């Protein structure tokens, strides 16, 4: 057993910002990132000169990185991070920023993710995603992530008897949640029958199993609790958080993520149990991945995911509120901002700032991230339990 980790005491998460997504945008990632950063700073009453830490995630920033953005946006941080972890970026940025603030390396860290979506950028993104994908995945039909996740969904269904109806329940519930989120790209209700009848994309994946790529950005700030209180900002605190990369590399097909290695420690850190979680934000690039998270995050046993979604109500008013803003499946996947959407929504939820998607009395949320299909599976995973500040 490794040493006990230090806790995250004294760290506050504030100013959750979401710039409404657009299906396509002629703007750049820089533009989208600047807007989310400004929105978040405005909420806190801060100017760009007042942040001394900056973490960025983006796929479409090329040829720039976080470094280029400091000059582009006129920032002078003493702590800087560029996090290329896709769907795990939000959790990882939070973890890094929290430690920087705790250690005094930075006082206020802005964490931002954003991407643009030009008419042709999805295709360009695919063709330059990773070396293993280029060498060993894309030459096989060039189906992108759809094909990868179709393979693991196929295996999952065969091993555990899950059906498309089960995955459909996740999508339908999220669409119901999205209808309350004025910024969600998907604005029409989705029925289970529509889900089942959808155009096949890469069997068993069909249209409503896939996210819609779009442009957008998300941000939040990390500072000390004292700073948040001094500024009178609603804030969340970190009860516990984990990350893990390239877990279970010998599994022939991915059926579990890195969470499963560290989940006990997460609950131990947070001193709570799955039943104490008021709402869950999973990384939902495909519903099978959300189902995998229900299992690996301890809400049900491995293989029980389909029964879990049959027994529980995943809507905002249900007994297991899940992806309350509609998640990526219904709000859209704004590139690396897809790694932030759940976390930013969870911050709003536990600080009672979620508005139309608010879960009543939500005080403790779990957020999980999952990212980077480097070859045949998602490599990065992370999770955090955050709580609304006690008055």
């Amino acid at each position, binding site marked *: 057993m490794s040493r006990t980790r230090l806790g995250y005491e004294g760290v506050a998460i504030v100013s959750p910002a979401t710039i409404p997504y657009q299906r396509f945008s002629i703007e750049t990632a820089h533009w989208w990132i600047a807007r989310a950063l400004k929105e978040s700073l405005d909420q806190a009453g801060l100017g760009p000169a007042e942040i001394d830490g900056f973490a960025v995630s983006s796929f479409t920033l090329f040829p720039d990185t976080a470094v280029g953005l400091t000059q582009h946006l006129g920032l002078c941080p003493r702590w800087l991070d560029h996090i290329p972890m896709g769907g795990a970026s939000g959790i990882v940025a939070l973890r890094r920023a929290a430690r920087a603030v705790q250690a005094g390396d930075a006082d206020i860290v802005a964490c931002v993710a954003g991407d643009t979506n030009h008419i042709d950028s999805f295709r360009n993104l695919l063709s330059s995603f990773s070396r293993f994908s*280029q*060498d060993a995945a894309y*030459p096989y*039909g*060039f189906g992108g992530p759809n*094909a990868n996740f179709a393979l693991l969904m196929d295996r999952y269904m065969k091993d555990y008897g899950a059906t498309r109806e089960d995955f459909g329940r996740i999508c339908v519930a999220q669409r119901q949640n999205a209808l309350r989120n004025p910024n969600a790209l998907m604005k029409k209700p989705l029925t289970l029958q529509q889900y089942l009848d959808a155009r096949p994309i*890469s069997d068993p994946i069909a249209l409503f199993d896939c996210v819609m790529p779009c442009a957008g950005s998300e941000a939040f700030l990390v500072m000390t609790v004292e700073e948040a209180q001094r500024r009178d900002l609603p804030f969340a605190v970190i009860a516990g958080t984990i990350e893990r990369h390239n877990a279970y590399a010998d599994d022939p*097909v991915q059926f579990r993520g890195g969470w499963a290695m560290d989940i006990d420690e997460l609950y131990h850190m947070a001193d709570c149990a799955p039943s104490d979680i008021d709402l869950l934000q999973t990384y939902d690039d495909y519903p099978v991945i959300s189902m995998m998270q229900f299992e690996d995050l301890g809400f049900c046993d491995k293989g029980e995911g389909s029964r879990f979604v049959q027994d529980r109500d995943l809507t905002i008013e249900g007994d297991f509120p899940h992806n309350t803003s509609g998640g990526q499946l219904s709000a859209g996947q704004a590139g690396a901002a897809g790694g932030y959407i759940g976390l930013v929504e969870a911050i709003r939820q536990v600080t009672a700032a979620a508005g139309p998607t608010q879960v009543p009395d939500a005080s403790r949320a779990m957020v999980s991230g999952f990212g980077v299909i480097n070859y045949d599976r998602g490599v990065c995973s992370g999770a955090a339990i955050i709580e609304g500040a006690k008055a």
Partner: protein
Amino acid sequence: MSEPIAPPGKKNPQRRTDVPQTPPQQRSRAALGLAAAAAEGRFMLQVCGDCGAVQYPPRDACSRCLSINLQWQDVSPGGRLVAETRVRATTDLYFRKQMPVRVGTVKLDVGPSVICHVHGDVGDGADVRMAIKLDRAGQGVMMALPVKETPFMEDDPRLREMSCTPRHRRVLVTDARNPNAPAIVSALAAAGAEKIFVGLSEDWRPNRHNDDIMAVPGVEMLPLDVTDSKSVEELAAELGGKTDILVNNARYVRPGGLMARNDTVFAQNEMDVNYLGLMRLAQAFGPAMCARTADGTNAAVAWVNILSAYAISNSPDYGCFSASNAAALSLSQNMRADFRTSGLRVLNVFVGPTDDDWHQELPPPKVPANTLARSLVQGLVDGLEDVYCGDVAKDMIERFRASPKIQEREMTGFRS
């Protein structure tokens, strides 16, 4: 079983010929090892020289022990299909025309999982035999095949994309006078070639192979002299648009090395046929064939060169002939580069001394024409780029790979 492919009908002249597209070309340097294995039809993966772990995808350091000592080795091709999908949507222009594409994950007996093309006759969750095939980008790709042959197996659309099979295709064999011509024509016909054109130089001169060639169904003899640009161009104008496979068997060979001759007469003939002849053919037929690589069932697929194994390292007894073949080998690499974007494959069949008049002073082993023809057609069916036919050719390439310099020293040793 696979659905047998119907023979292509008459082409509609109004319809635009599909523009040649290739699957994704881009690869890391390590991944080119797959193309090298596929070129010879071998199933090779990187194996760690320190800990023995088999690696996939190809990489630069061992994922078990961090050793950089990774060697490409033949490994067991057995595995099991553990997941599959049919990709029905893609942004790639090549695959858009191939949808749906069956793709799977195979757990190899030797360790890694691989994402691969899956033959239509592989059952759900079945054991498979893996092959590394050259795709239309000329890159090595993994394909899961049924463990045992199935009826019409080669007609599976994905496998046919990887193959250059003569089945339902029209082939031009350039030289009716070469003693190997009857065997090659027969083997092509046996493999299902729809039509075989055979070039005959100086058609007023008798050719002792004509009867054997003309006995094969589907054969048509046409005038062709590879040393005459005009003759080559004329035939290309007539046949270029309906040549799906070109087999260049034209060859001029005389024994003798540099100092055994005191002029350049034979050498000029050797270069004129073996090197410049290939160049004339490539320039005349190449463009039309490259434009027709996406033209349905009988799209243009391959160009075949028959090269002396002594193109690899000079054999002093046939020194000048070796030199002309070395030139042709080099030119074939140029052809590969120029044909790459079209997907037209260049198959080089290397052969040691053949069993004919010009090699009668050599001791065995010599390659009978039937053996050469069989290797050539099998190379097409398997979609290879390099075939080493016979013991001499295999020995030459093995020694070349061990050490080109030691091979040269062996080849140029004391002669009595």
